[in-house]
């Protein structure tokens, strides 16, 4: 692993660093990222699904030359899956071997089988013990409260105590990014330890820039129409407003359909790339879509 890149010095440099890795960030977000790096605090990102919360961690890992360690949260996530686990089959093998060679007593055996090489590092331990890392704790809201409390302890000292082995401390603390889609409120205690940033939908100009980077196959004129259409859609009272990820998908879908401009017909065909609930699709398809297309074309 190469030596990680130094942290950027100011907000402009942070924005430039993210931009260099194809991430269009508003000044607010760049400030939050800079502070997370400089103050060594976890960055806690909330926002609608598909606004690029996870992406920021990936980009940071690339830009800073660190490994990305990702922990995907789910209900019932436990220490064996998140932190570490003993490699039981290999330990048994070791015991059999020492029995075969007629090796010594219990203490020697215990010391032999509880070694670092029999420890399977899961994401949290890997982020502390391995090479300098960006630790992405993704969708924390999906994990349950006990896990959150466990995380609290880890994030305050970046050390792990393993009863059989002792305490492992991070030589270089990982950069931590936590994301949440708000399917559950994350507890105040955890929020207090983090820097909080709400990732909003981008404005039209930023979204056009994102599309030109992420869906280059889609022409400029079409991109502008896509953005205008999606931005209008977000203003409507939908069950799930489309995120940036959906606009990128849709732009790519449209370019695969060889569309050069939005028409009501092509919108109806490809609406499934943008809206993921039948209620929303039924509401937009047809007349409403035609009207939005007309408005979007005028605006673009």
């Amino acid at each position, binding site marked *: 692993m190469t030596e990680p890149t130094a942290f950027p010095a100011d907000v402009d440099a942070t924005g430039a660093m993210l931009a260099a890795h194809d991430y269009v960030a508003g000044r*607010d977000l760049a400030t*939050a990222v800079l502070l997370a790096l400089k103050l060594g605090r976890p960055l806690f990102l909330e926002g609608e699904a598909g606004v690029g919360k996870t992406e920021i961690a990936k980009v940071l890992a690339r830009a800073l030359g660190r490994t990305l360690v990702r922990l995907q949260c789910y209900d*019932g996530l436990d220490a064996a899956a998140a932190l570490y*686990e003993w490699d039981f089959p290999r330990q048994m093998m070791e015991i059999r071997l020492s029995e075969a060679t007629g090796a010594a007593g219990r203490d020697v055996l215990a010391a032999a089988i509880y070694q670092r090489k029999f420890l399977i590092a899961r994401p949290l331990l890997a982020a502390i013990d391995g090479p300098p890392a960006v630790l992405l704790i993704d969708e924390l809201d999906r994990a349950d409260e006990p896990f959150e409390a466990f995380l609290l302890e880890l994030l305050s000292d970046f050390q792990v105590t393993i009863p059989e082995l002792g305490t492992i401390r991070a030589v270089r603390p990982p950069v931590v990014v936590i994301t949440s889609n708000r399917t*559950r409120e994350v507890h105040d205690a955890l929020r207090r330890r983090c820097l909080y940033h709400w990732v909003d939908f981008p404005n039209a100009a930023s979204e056009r820039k994102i599309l030109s980077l992420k869906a280059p196959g889609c022409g400029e004129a079409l991109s502008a129409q896509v953005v205008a259409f999606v931005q209008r859609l977000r203003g409507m009272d939908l069950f799930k407003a489309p995120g940036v990820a959906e606009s990128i998908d849709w732009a790519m879908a449209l370019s695969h359909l060889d569309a050069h401009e939005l028409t009501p017909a092509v919108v109806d065909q490809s609406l499934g790339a943008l809206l993921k609930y039948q209620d929303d699709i039924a509401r937009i398809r047809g007349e409403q879509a035609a009207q939005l297309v007309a408005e979007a074309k005028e605006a673009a």
Partner: protein
Amino acid sequence: MIPIDASLADPEAGGKLPLNVMHFTRLLRRAGLPVGPGQAVAAAQALSAIDATNRTDVRAALATVLAQRHEQREVFDAAFDVFWRDPTGTEIARAMAAIDGMRRQEDAKARAASRRILEAMAGNQAPRPREAPEPDQQLDMTLTFSADEQLREMDFEAMSAAEIANARAAIRRMRLVLEETPTRRFRPAPNGHRWDAPATLRRALKRGELLEIARKRRRTRPPPLVALCDISGSMTRYAQILLHFLHAVANARSRVHVFLFGTRLTNITRQLRNRDPEVAFELVGRAVPDWSGGTRIGEALAGFNHHWARRVLGQGAVVLLITDGLDRDGGRDLSHQMERLKKSCRRLVWLNPLLRYEGFAPKSLGIRAMLPFVDEFRPVHNLNSLADLAELLSKPAPPRDGSFAWTPPQAPQQSPPQAA
């Protein structure tokens, strides 16, 4: 970790900024944001890490530390604007009033606190000669409610005291045990079905030989409980009692969310968390604008489905829907919203006080629209029915095959309550 900049420890060297940050955090605290001293220090650190002359950056930096929730951002921004325009504090009292208005729905306790502070500040401040006040659009956001809604402040003392006291004591004794659902975690159990390899090894090493196999089984835990309670005019008397029930439940276990609805939907989970029932109901009374008004069940459910269902119905939630089903809108959009609600939870129980009447028949449009989508339909009008409910919820949910069909029970129902 970055060492704290020396200039921060010494306010003289760092200029006025640290002092201002301190004043600003005080203002936020008064506005009801939970800002602790740790965050004040972090805010000062944050400012030392950026260019503190750039107002946009300062705002963003302070927000990452001091506004910990998206809902708090509005209050934060308003406070920031006022403070940085006039940090001497003369205008802050006026800002407090505006902040107050914005937060009306959100947090009654803090609102009361900020009003007290506002009064305190007004007391020791001389009236200040000033130019004509500039109208500030951003701050003029006091909520206005439509005229047809009855903005009645609920008075809990109006209840017949002796009866309520008895009922309350009984409710406190009630235990709500939900049928537990398995999680992905394990716990050691001598008669478990699974082999716990690491524990077996540890035990064998302690004893020197492999004597017994350690076992484990899945942990179970009760699912989240979400209560949606109707507080319209026809439900008032039941809502009062049921609030006691919900308060007891919300304080006895985790993962309980309580919503009230009449013409609008209010989340009162935080208010109910207060252990003291009197304080809790006082807070609820202030947070809820539409006691004893009409009901728009469809609209309330639509609001719940849209804004809350995805946030509180995860992990196999059980929903208690407490309403008489008498809908002012005649059941418009109701079956659609009920269908969505049913599909997003594991078990949907409808508690209807009207069921106590003999010969109850689902005639109203609202009731007919809702009935096919519930898993269970139960009366809730006296302590016995609450006890039955607790019993019911501790048993497995009925299978979800086809839509629910309610048949009136054969046995005679309870007579209407003695005293009106």
